[in-house]
């Protein structure tokens, strides 16, 4: 299963890749949400994305991906914004995300969620 990871923080992105690859997943990354939006065909089976990014808004990404590729699963991982309060994770669900996680997370949790989201693959 291919997973697209979007996060503006390079090391976070790198660590995600390492994590996923260590678990045997195929990964694709971009640190710029615009690039993700520009993708013409479904890039992966699952999207893991941060919410608060400078170039492209995570929420927009979720909404657009959900619209374009309805069967694609979307997992949100976010540490929140600096001044953002409120339930941004719930908001992400409303935008169309399938599941959410907050950074930092327990990697085991991540894998559990992945299994739940794509049971046919596992």
């Amino acid at each position, binding site marked *: 299963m291919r997973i697209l990871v979007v996060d503006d*923080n390079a*090391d*976070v992105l*790198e*660590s*995600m890749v*390492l*994590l996923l*690859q*260590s*678990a045997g997943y195929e990964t694709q990354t971009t640190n710029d949400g615009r690039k993700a939006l520009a993708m013409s065909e479904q890039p992966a089976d699952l999207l893991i994305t941060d919410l*608060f*990014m*400078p170039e492209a*808004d995570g929420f927009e990404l979720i909404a657009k991906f959900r619209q374009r590729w309805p069967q694609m699963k979307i997992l949100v*991982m976010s*540490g*929140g*914004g*600096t*001044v*953002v309060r409120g339930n941004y994770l719930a908001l992400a669900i409303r935008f169309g995300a399938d599941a959410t996680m*907050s*950074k*930092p*997370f*327990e*990697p085991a949790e991540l894998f559990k969620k992945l299994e739940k989201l794509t049971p046919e693959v596992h």
Partner: protein
Amino acid sequence: MRFRLKIVERMAVGFGLMLLILAVFAWVMDRQTRKIEEARRELTTQISPLIDAADSVAIRVLNAGIGVRAWALDPTAEALLRHHQQVVEARASLLALELMPREPDAEAAFQQARPLLEDYLAECQRFVERGKENANEASEQRLSARREKALTALNAFTKLQRGKMNRALLSIQGASNHAESGTALVVLVALLLFLLLAVFTVRSVREPTQHLVDVARRMEGGDWSAALELARVSVDRHARDELGILRHAFGAAATALEGREQRLKSLVSELRGKNDQIQAQNEELQVQNEELQVQGEEIHTQNEELQAQSEEIRAQNEELARASARLRGQAEVLAEEDERKTEFLGVLAHELRNPLAAISNSLFAMKRGVGNLELRERAEQVIERQTRLLSRLIEDLLDVTRINSGKIRIDREPVDLATVLRSAVEDCKIAAERAGTRVELQLPTQPALVEGDPMRLQQVMGNLIDNAIKFGGDKKPIKVLLEVKDDRSTEVRVTDDGVGIDAELLRRLFVPFSQADTSVKRHRTGLGLGLALVKALVELHGGKVTAFSEGLGRGAEFCVRFPAPK
């Protein structure tokens, strides 16, 4: 109301009586006059002419006698003629007398006288005729005797006539006397009556008039009692005449006036009373006024006191307001600081997430992919980097704390900023490349000496350049300029052409925990301590740091100046 016209009536009566008397008098006078007329008539028609004629005869006869004598004395023709004439005349007059009617009682006397007269005259003629020679004294005496006789007889007749005439005259006289006395009587009577009337009228008028005058005088003098008395007496009692009415009217007028005067008097006394009242009230008011004045002054002084107090209070209030404002300002500042600190803590917490997530993931990956060397290496690098990042963050944090509590120390040794900058630029090379930009360094020919801590100075420069890379654009390179001024002070300018700083942030740029943009659109992570730290460190070195920016999207320039080393 019928009333007698006392005065007019009386006057009328008087006049009437007068007229009556005059009428009577006139009638009487008329009778008398008639009588007189009669007498006179008699006299003129009968007696008088007779007497005249008789007298004329007598005179003529005498003349004839004289004529004879005259002839006798001077027997001229003229004398003779004259004598003739005289005799003729005498005869004529005798004839005339004869022709006149006579009364029977006088007739006899006349008849006696006539022949004598004729006889004489004839004798006279004969005397003359006889001529002078015959005329002698005796003849003359005889003639004269004849004459005397004739004249005596004539005289008798004349006497009779005269007697009649005298009687007539007497009668006239009598009538005249009667008239006189009658007139006198009438006049007297009239006078008397008039007097009486006058007296009565005057009396009847005088009294009331005098009384009225008296009353009037008294009224003038102020005594109205008499006038009022008049009114009390009814009209009927007064004689019903003009004066009575006048008196009554007078009395009524007096009463009315009196009444009015009384009313006036009472009004006046009322008014006076009221006036007195008002006066009394006035005096009261005056007293009250004075009291009020006193009170007013008291109030005034109280007012002034109050005003002074009010001023005090106002001043105090102002003070309080100022203090309040100050406190508010301070509170605001504190609140702002507090908010910033809270924000900062939020940011801090947030900033920790990513490094922790990266480290956690990397560790798990290492454990999972135990045989994968590449994976392990990459994971190690991530952990290393992130750990360093965390360290730096904590150091920054601690630095700020230390600065705040004044516990930071710097070394003081001569440092060439050129070296510092070169080193800082070198350190940032990778970051610059990754950001797609490069740093241009411009150094002076001479050494740029500064007294300070090399490590800290590097920290400062590194921070500024880092920021420039972070917030600078990728179009133009970042310029770092080092200059040495004439006074041996040094200046470092870091210029970028990036997002710029808006005026609002420019103000709080060096204040701790403020960021260029604490919203979502941040380039890189950062706690916002950098510039605060830069400022503190620069100032510790005795320098000054300033930032310039024309606004968002117009880049920024940071300028640091250090004083000349001692």
